[in-house]
């Protein structure tokens, strides 16, 4: 393996280690190698330049580690799958690296190692990257599922040594597309040949998608007996339980934290503990999340909000206000941040009986809401503050809008339920969500009925209005595109209408790239769009 043409990035907070590894890399031919000592520096370098290889130490200091870094850059697509990632760990870090759920390094190397060993391992990684390039190239920020799956099948047919790896990728793709039956068959065929943890978890996820959560739960519990350190199994089990039994889910996340304590898991534990009214545990979890990470890269506004809420619920007013104030450390001072802080602060003051300050803070939050576009969690925080300040109508207006926008996102709907629960209005919340759901179904049904009875233009008007109002509702956008395309089909090509359809399909892709109704409408567009029309990037 010729490493002379490869460009590497070495990440380690210890200068002496950087020097040593840099020399080892040079001795095996990798001369072009940049260095970074912090997560920030590494991300800046990754944004500026393409690298073939990242060599990263597990321990990066300041409460950050290589696994968090890897998850961050892979999730945000700063690091393409075609770039190799080698993690260097001590003897105690390797279990946490290798059993991490979604994002694992291409290989890891235990200290101490020789230049020869480093060379051998890098050679193997690059061989594999090269062999699987036809698959990896479709797994970018926008995953082309059809092409990626076809590439997987081609590789599997070749019966190369990487078949197992390709099966694993194919399973993930099938699950993402909701093709449960095929995924189940794939995992079962793997497990027939060998016992391996990832296929157990994959099978359980396929069973969930298949509508068999009880069997999935039993399978995961059994898998954890055999593989008590396999973090992916804990994550899958917690995800499953969260829908039916939040107490059990909290227990599972707690167990996973004993295996590997990460900011992400502490955050999850905090959220579950809040839902379970276990405020002391919630405070501990969120405190861990905000205090451990001293780089600011891995925590979010939500962690401070969670901390403030768990303090308020225990009547720790001063601590809650401190958490709200600390929220500004490490983050850019955006209108969003200011609104979130004000909404939280207002709730703390309500609890402390300080009506004047509570109203003033809420007014600031509402002003921000009018002047800028705020994210989902900030909107819900303002709704919560409205409830706390005795403005239920204002609160419901916000919540209704969110519910219509995120009609198909169970997680968001669950957050809405929590808002009502905290406000002590559980039943009203259920009612509102039910009404919203019915309203959205009615809208779609009415539009379809109009179209069928020949009043296509009326249908288009209804759907277009709704799609413009609800940019995050994929179903509405798909129906709007569908109606516009039907008009094109009956009345002939009109480039304005083609462009309109393009816009709504793109809006739907952005809202939910995996929506099951997306493929047919994309095909419909491609059939009708004349040469020269904008192609769809799916």
């Amino acid at each position, binding site marked *: 393996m010729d490493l002379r043409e490869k460009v590497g990035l070495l990440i380690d907070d210890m200068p002496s280690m950087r020097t040593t590894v840099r020399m080892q890399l040079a001795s095996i031919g990798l001369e072009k190698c940049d260095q970074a000592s912090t997560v920030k520096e590494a991300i800046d370098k990754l944004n500026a330049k393409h690298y073939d290889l990242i060599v990263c130490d597990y321990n990066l200091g300041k409460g950050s580690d290589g696994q968090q870094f890897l998850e961050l850059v892979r999730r945000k697509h700063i690091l393409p799958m075609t770039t190799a990632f080698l993690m260097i760990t001590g*003897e105690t870090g*390797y*279990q946490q*690296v*290798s*059993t991490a759920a979604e994002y694992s390094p291409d290989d890891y190397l*235990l200290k*101490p190692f*020789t230049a*020869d*060993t480093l060379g*051998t391992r890098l050679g*193997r990684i690059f061989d594999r990257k090269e062999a699987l390039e036809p698959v990896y190239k479709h797994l970018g920020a926008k995953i082309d599922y059809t092409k990626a799956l076809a590439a997987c099948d081609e590789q599997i047919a070749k019966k190369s*040594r990487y*078949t*197992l*790896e390709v099966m694993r990728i194919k399973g993930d793709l099938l699950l993402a597309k909701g093709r449960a039956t095929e995924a189940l068959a794939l995992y079962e065929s793997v497990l027939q040949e*060998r*016992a*391996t*943890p*990832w296929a*157990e978890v994959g099978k359980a996820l396929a069973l969930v998608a298949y509508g068999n959560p009880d069997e999935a739960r039993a*399978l995961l519990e*059994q*898998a954890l*007996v*055999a*593989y008590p*350190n*396999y973090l992916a199994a804990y994550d899958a089990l917690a995800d499953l339980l969260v829908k039916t039994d939040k107490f059990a889910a909290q227990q599972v996340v707690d167990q996973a934290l004993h*295996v590997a304590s990460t900011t992400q898991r502490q955050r999850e534990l905090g959220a579950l503990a809040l839902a379970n009214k276990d405020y002391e545990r919630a405070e501990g979890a969120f405190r861990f999340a905000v205090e451990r990470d001293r780089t600011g890269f891995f925590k979010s506004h939500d962690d401070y909000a969670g901390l403030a809420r768990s303090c308020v619920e225990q009547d720790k007013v001063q601590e809650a206000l401190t958490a709200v104030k600390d929220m500004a450390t490490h983050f850019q001072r955006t209108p969003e941040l200011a609104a979130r802080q004000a909404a939280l602060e207002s709730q703390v003051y309500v609890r402390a009986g300080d009506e004047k300050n509570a109203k003033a803070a809420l007014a600031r939050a509402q002003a921000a809401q009018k002047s800028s576009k705020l994210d989902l969690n900030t909107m819900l925080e303002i709704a919560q503050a409205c409830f706390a300040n005795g403005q239920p109508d204002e609160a419901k207006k916000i919540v209704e809008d969110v519910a219509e926008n995120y009609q198909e996102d169970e997680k968001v709907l669950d957050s809405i339920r929590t808002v009502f629960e905290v406000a002590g209005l559980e039943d009203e919340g259920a009612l509102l969500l039910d009404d919203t759901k019915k309203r959205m179904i009615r809208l779609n049904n009415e539009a379809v009925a109009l179209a069928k009875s020949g009043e296509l233009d009326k249908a288009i008007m209804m759907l277009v209005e709704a799609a413009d109002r609800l940019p995050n509702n994929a179903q509405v956008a798909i129906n709007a595109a569908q109606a516009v395309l039907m008009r094109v089909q009956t009345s002939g090509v009109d480039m304005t209408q083609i462009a309109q359809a393009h816009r709504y399909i793109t809006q739907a892709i952005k809202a939910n790239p995996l929506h099951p109704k997306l493929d047919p409408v994309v095909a419909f567009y491609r059939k009708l769009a004349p040469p020269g029309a904008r192609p769809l990037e799916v």
Partner: protein
Amino acid sequence: MEVLLAAAIHDAKNALNSLGVWLDKAQLECGGQSPALIQAKAVTATISGQLVELLALYRAGEGNLRMAVEDQYLEDFLSDLMAELSATRPVEDAEGGAARSIATDFAAAKDIGAWAFDAYLVKFVLLDALRNASRHAREQIRFSIAEEPGGGIRFDVADDGAGYPEEILRAESTAKMTPESSGLGLSFARVIAERHATPAGRHGRVELANDGLGKGGARLSLILP
């Protein structure tokens, strides 16, 4: 205690690592082949392995042994293992005879492809077994891998020495102290084998028998589910 013991072992391992670096340097300074230095490196590697085993056993006893079970390409695993072994093997045995050569049969590795286990811990089990065989063999050692009927893989380490003493063969579950061995390696091997399990409830195991090479040579088999 755990923290203290772990820290002490960790420090000792680091010290051994830097000793290894110094030995390499000394080797360079004396222009390559110093049998005494090679011997010293082999001893360093053995102690280092024993520390890993000791710590793992201690953690297992405390319920804190963590394993990373994941797919390993067997060909790669075995090639790494043999490279590490040959880098840390003595040139001669305790009586001054030449070190025994190891015949390998890895044909099945390619057919099996990958298997899920903790490569780090299993590597130490096998290194220990191979070093042990080197000490006891008359002339030959055989190291092979095969598919285990009924599911699983099997590593066999066989030699043509005098075989295991009767009391070790009888004491299936507990390792016995003998003049040559503290029993650490065997205890470690058994714990690591046992901790490898499948959701169906199958566990790994260690087999000892005197049906190795020659007339009643020792055989150690590690079977992983």
